[in-house]
């Protein structure tokens, strides 16, 4: 390590103090100084140089002039010794304490070239490192030379573009570099990302923009504009282009390539077309534009290099193909979505957990799912039959109302999505969120019935094939329930009773003193019928009899029988009330009345029939039945699996008046039946016709990831996943049709849990789906829902919000979906 640095044009003065007794040292007048030059591993001892000693304390001084640094050396080091000889004593040698590093004062750089013109005014940079670190820009003379002083440090030299250092022919104080001069340094004017070292996410499914936009790099055919860095180029100069394509996807159309349009000469391809080279002339404005097809496959990479020589070393840009799919959301404002500010406005979006799942799924297929707009509406605006109490779908907590969509209400929405310029069509998905989705079943209307002992009749709809119901039909918005009937279940013959016999207070009159006969009227008050019996004299002189004659008694039976009319009796409560109109005033008259009463009573008891009588029987003795209006359905108690009916109890004939335990008198069980259009529950729906491009999805904040899987499953279909025709997959040109579950999978990368392929149709699902994850044995099953726990791919044919197994695109579906053109998303 040197202690001191000097240039080789500087002198060094070395002073050596000579200690000792004054008499002796004062006799020393000279000292010998010996300097040693250390040049790498070589040492060169110079001839001793004498110095004069004087003064006391005695000091010997010597001035040393270092030799020039050799041309071939960057520096050398100097060490020294002092030798003194006291009188009469042997010489004493002292080593200097420090080392001196000697640098050249003048450094010379000479540039050479095969083309003498190339060395004129070479611009270069000298970088010094060590105690002094410095970068200095220099310019050589027209003769290609530079001479000057550099810091006392090791240094390196680099030439500035357009020069290029090809060979170093010398090192040391005088150096020689062989250079070539490029005409200029090429740069990209467009694209011009902020950070050129990072790959650019190029959104290949969006329409290309000119110029290229930093905020939204779009288009799969990308235009590049190049120029020279410092306007050093001239029109007609060539810019060299090299494209390195990753060709990660096997897609064969719109294959990544350097397009020949505008180039000077043909494009040369090598490395299985992964490398494309070309060149282009700068135009009058000293710029040039060329195009690169990045392809339509997500995840494909590309590196584009340009330069003023075919080394293409001046500028580099890297690209990764991505696709972007936007979404609009529609939901009632009482749904628990996440509210956030966007551009100063409140918007509602999926909660963070759902967005994270969207990103995770999107990343696997190089697709961004980006929020565009949300649309909400108030409870009052919800179409009839769509906003129901939360208990209807079995929720005990959360917003008081839930929003239920069906095929019909899906089409009749209180608000519209943004369209035209306000939308991102055709690269967007429009999502309608609901809390439940019911759709009409295949069958005609179904009947359900139950038998109740209370006024509350709960009809479980699942008796009709596990069906659900909702108030408005999913097909046309009409009432789902078309009939509610009730019917008493009692057996009329088990409720036979004799009519109740009562005698009202008689109507008595004084009567005449003399009469040949006496009459008594028997009235039945409920039916307003009467009969008159007559008491006659048995002889001219006899009194009027107090006993009824046989003939008069004979009037009573027909009279009574005329009263025993079942419907009339039931209408009157199965009661008969008699009243006697008779004379009074003496014992005989009273006896006649008594005799009539007792005869009437006796005959009634003998003749009165037992008739079916019960509040639940109508006048004809038939079990009562009736229809109820839809208002009898209690929506507060109803659920999607239960139609709750409240039986009316206002009028005496209302079933609510007498429904009850049939062992209790006057009570009867009631069978309540209902005709309704059965429904099933779905988790999503892809719109058709006017709703094309829309997806209906059941939003469940407790199962956000499963919900997003359902959304992306549908979007996946729209990306033509698992839809194939012919021998090749027409949606992913270059790909063969995926192997079906009954075929052997040839591609080891796609094999999973067995040797069979993954594509299947039917098996209980509709359309074509992916069975990745199912074992070969599973794939023999008739119904794949039996093995759904093994399914790993999001394109499996069924899902369930409560499914604990998270799904994503399988490796095979990833490959296929990345190869698909996503420039249009129309569900």
């Amino acid at each position, binding site marked *: 390590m040197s202690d001191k640095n000097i240039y080789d044009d500087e002198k060094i003065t070395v002073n050596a103090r000579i200690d000792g007794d004054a008499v002796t040292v004062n006799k020393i007048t000279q000292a010998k100084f010996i300097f040693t030059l250390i040049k790498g591993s070589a040492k060169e001892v110079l001839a001793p140089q004498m110095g004069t000693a004087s003064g006391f304390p005695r000091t010997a001084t010597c001035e040393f002039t270092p030799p020039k640094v050799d041309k071939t050396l960057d520096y050398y080091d100097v060490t020294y010794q002092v030798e003194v000889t006291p009188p009469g004593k042997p010489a004493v040698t002292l080593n200097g304490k420090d080392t001196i590093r000697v640098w050249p004062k003048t450094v010379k750089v000479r540039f050479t070239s095969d083309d003498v013109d190339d060395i004129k005014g070479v611009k270069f940079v000298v970088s010094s490192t060590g105690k002094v670190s410095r970068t200095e820009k220099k310019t050589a003379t027209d003769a290609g030379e530079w001479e000057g002083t550099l810091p006392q440090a090791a240094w390196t030299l680099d030439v500035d573009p357009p020069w290029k250092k090809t060979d170093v022919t010398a090192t040391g104080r005088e150096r020689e570099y062989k250079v070539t001069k490029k005409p200029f340094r090429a740069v990209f004017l467009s694209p011009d990302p902020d950070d050129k070292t990072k790959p650019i996410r190029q959104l290949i499914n969006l329409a290309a923009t000119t110029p290229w936009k930093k905020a939204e790099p779009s288009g799969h055919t990308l235009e590049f504009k190049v120029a020279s860095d410092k306007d050093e180029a001239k029109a007609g100069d060539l810019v060299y282009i090299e494209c390195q394509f990753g060709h990660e996807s096997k897609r064969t159309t719109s294959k990544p390539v350097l397009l020949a349009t505008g180039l000077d000469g043909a494009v040369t391809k090598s490395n299985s077309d992964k490398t494309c080279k070309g060149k282009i002339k700068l135009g009058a404005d000293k710029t040039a534009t060329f195009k690169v097809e990045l392809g339509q496959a997500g995840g494909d990479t590309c590196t584009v290099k340009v330069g003023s020589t075919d080394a293409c070393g001046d500028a580099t840009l890297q690209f990764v193909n991505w696709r972007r799919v936007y979404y609009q959301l529609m939901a009632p404002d009482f749904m628990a979505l996440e509210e956030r500010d966007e551009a100063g406005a409140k918007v509602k979006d999926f909660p963070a957990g759902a967005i994270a799942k969207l990103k995770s799924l999107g990343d696997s297929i190089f697709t961004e799912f980006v929020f565009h707009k949300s649309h909400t509406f108030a409870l009052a605006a919800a179409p009839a039959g769509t906003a129901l109490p939360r208990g209807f779908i079995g929720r005990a907590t959360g917003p008081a109302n839930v929003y239920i969509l069906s095929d019909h209400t899906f089409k009749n929405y209180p608000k519209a999505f943004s369209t035209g310029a306000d939308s991102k069509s055709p690269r967007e998905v429009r999502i309608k969120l609901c809390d439940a989705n019911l*759709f009409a*079943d*295949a*069958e*005609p*209307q*179904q*009947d*359900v*019935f*139950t*038998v109740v002992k209370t006024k509350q009749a709960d*009809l*479980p709809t*699942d*008796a*009709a*094939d*596990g*069906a*659900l119901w909702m108030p408005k039909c999913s097909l046309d918005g009409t009432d789902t329930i078309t009939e509610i009937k009730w019917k008493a*279940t009692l057996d009329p013959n088990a409720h036979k009773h004799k009519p109740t016999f009562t005698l009202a207070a008689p109507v008595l009159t004084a009567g005449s003193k003399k009469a040949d006969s006496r009459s008594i009227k028997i009235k039945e008050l409920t039916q307003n019928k009467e009969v008159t019996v007559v008491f006659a004299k048995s002889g001219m002189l006899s009194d009027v009899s107090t006993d009824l004659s046989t003939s008069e008694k004979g009037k009573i039976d027909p009279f009574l029988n005329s009263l025993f009319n079942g419907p009339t009796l039931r209408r009157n409560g199965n009661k008969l009330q008699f009243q006697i109109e008779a004379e009074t005033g003496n014992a005989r008259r009273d006896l006649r009345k008594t005799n009539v009463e007792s005869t009437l009573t006796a005959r009634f008891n003998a003749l009165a029939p037992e008739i079916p009588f019960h509040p639940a029987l109508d006048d004809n003795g038939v079990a009562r039945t009736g229809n109820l209006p839809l208002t009898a359905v209690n929506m507060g108690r109803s659920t999607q*699996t239960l139609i709750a009916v409240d039986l009316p109890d206002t009028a005496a004939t209302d079933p609510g008046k007498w429904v009850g335990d049939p062992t209790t008198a006057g009570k009867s069980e009631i*069978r309540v*039946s209902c*005709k309704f259009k*059965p429904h*099933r*529950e*779905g*988790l*999503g*729906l*892809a719109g058709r016709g006017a709703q094309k491009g829309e997806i209906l999805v*059941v939003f469940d904040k407790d199962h956000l990831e499963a919900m997003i899987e*359902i959304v992306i*499953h*549908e979007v996946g279909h729209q990306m033509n996943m698992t839809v194939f025709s012919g021998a090749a997959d027409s949606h992913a040109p270059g790909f063969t049709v995926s192997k079906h579950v009954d075929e052997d999978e040839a591609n080891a990368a796609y094999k999973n849990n067995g040797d069979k392929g993954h594509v299947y149709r*039917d*098996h*209980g*699902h*509709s*359309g074509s789906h992916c069975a990745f994850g199912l074992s070969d*044995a599973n794939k*023999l*099953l*008739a*119904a794949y*829902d*039996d093995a759904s726990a093994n399914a790993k791919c999001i394109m499996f044919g*069924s*899902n*369930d*919000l409560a499914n604990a197994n998270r799904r994503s695109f399988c490796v095979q579906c990833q490959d296929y979906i990345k190869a698909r053109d996503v420039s249009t998303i129309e569900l």
Partner: protein
Amino acid sequence: MEQGFLSLNDADFWDNYTQRLNTLGDEILDEVANKGVSVFALDAPKQIDIGQRQTLPVIGLRFGTSAYLIKHGYTRQALIVATDLVNNKTYVDLAVQPRNLPTRPGPNKTPDPSGGGGGGFTIDVRDRLGLPWVPGEYLITVVMSELVTNRVRVKLVESKQDPAVAAFVAQERAKLPLPAIQPLPGRPVPSYLQQKGSPDIPVKPGIALALPPLSVIEKTRECIGYGSFRVPLKAARSLKTSESVQMEGKSVNARVPIKLFATGDFIGLPYVWDLVVPSFDSPQQINMSGEVTGQFALDLCHNVPLASKEITRYVYAFSGEVMAGPVPMAFVTEHRDQP
């Protein structure tokens, strides 16, 4: 119930059946409520002019107690089975097309002890089974696990077709080559010879099946099913002497298509075996009786996961006018005693 129970004219089956269905449904509902009966029946137009109509509708009734209805879920379990009597080709598929979107499974169902219900169902058989829309005659059935409706007969005619053309078409169809024997005989099964387990050949036209009624899943390596049949000659294809081939050491003189399927799962999707069974009856026998007999034996578990879980499966066989089933095959898990 037999075909015609709805008392509808043929034309009513397309758009005029609702009222009749409701009326009859109300009557049946009373029977269900009062007597606990169940009804599973099918009706259909007797004849359809394929030049006038584009669909083949059948209308069914399904009523029963709550427990009955819950056990037999129509939407997922019902199979529509149609046998083309001209070609003796049987088609089978789910009666209701599964929805092309994820669905939420229905809630757990508990039978209402005093409840019940039911209703009608309609199926466009042409759509569900992809039937060729050409003149012909079909026998149609709906199967739900162990339940099977009556069979209805529907003729497809083309009134405007020239009789000569119709005759020509029929002649051409008759020339269609019958599929080869399938599956081919193996060791020891498939076999078309009488086996120890083979049921007797029915004395009247019919199919007899003998299947293992109970199998322990863990021990099930094979499920050999045996069948014997007697079918009218028109359900078979008799071979000319020159066409006769040797199989299992005997001369094959006729071939009989038999559709075998097993159902009974929560989702009724069937496991299907399309058999073309040889008959070794002599040409003289066939000509004299006008019937063809034969037998078959095959391992129903070969490449078919019948024993994938505890379940009772129901096996049916269809060939022309005859059918067999349901024949139950139960698969149970072995119960091991804990040490």
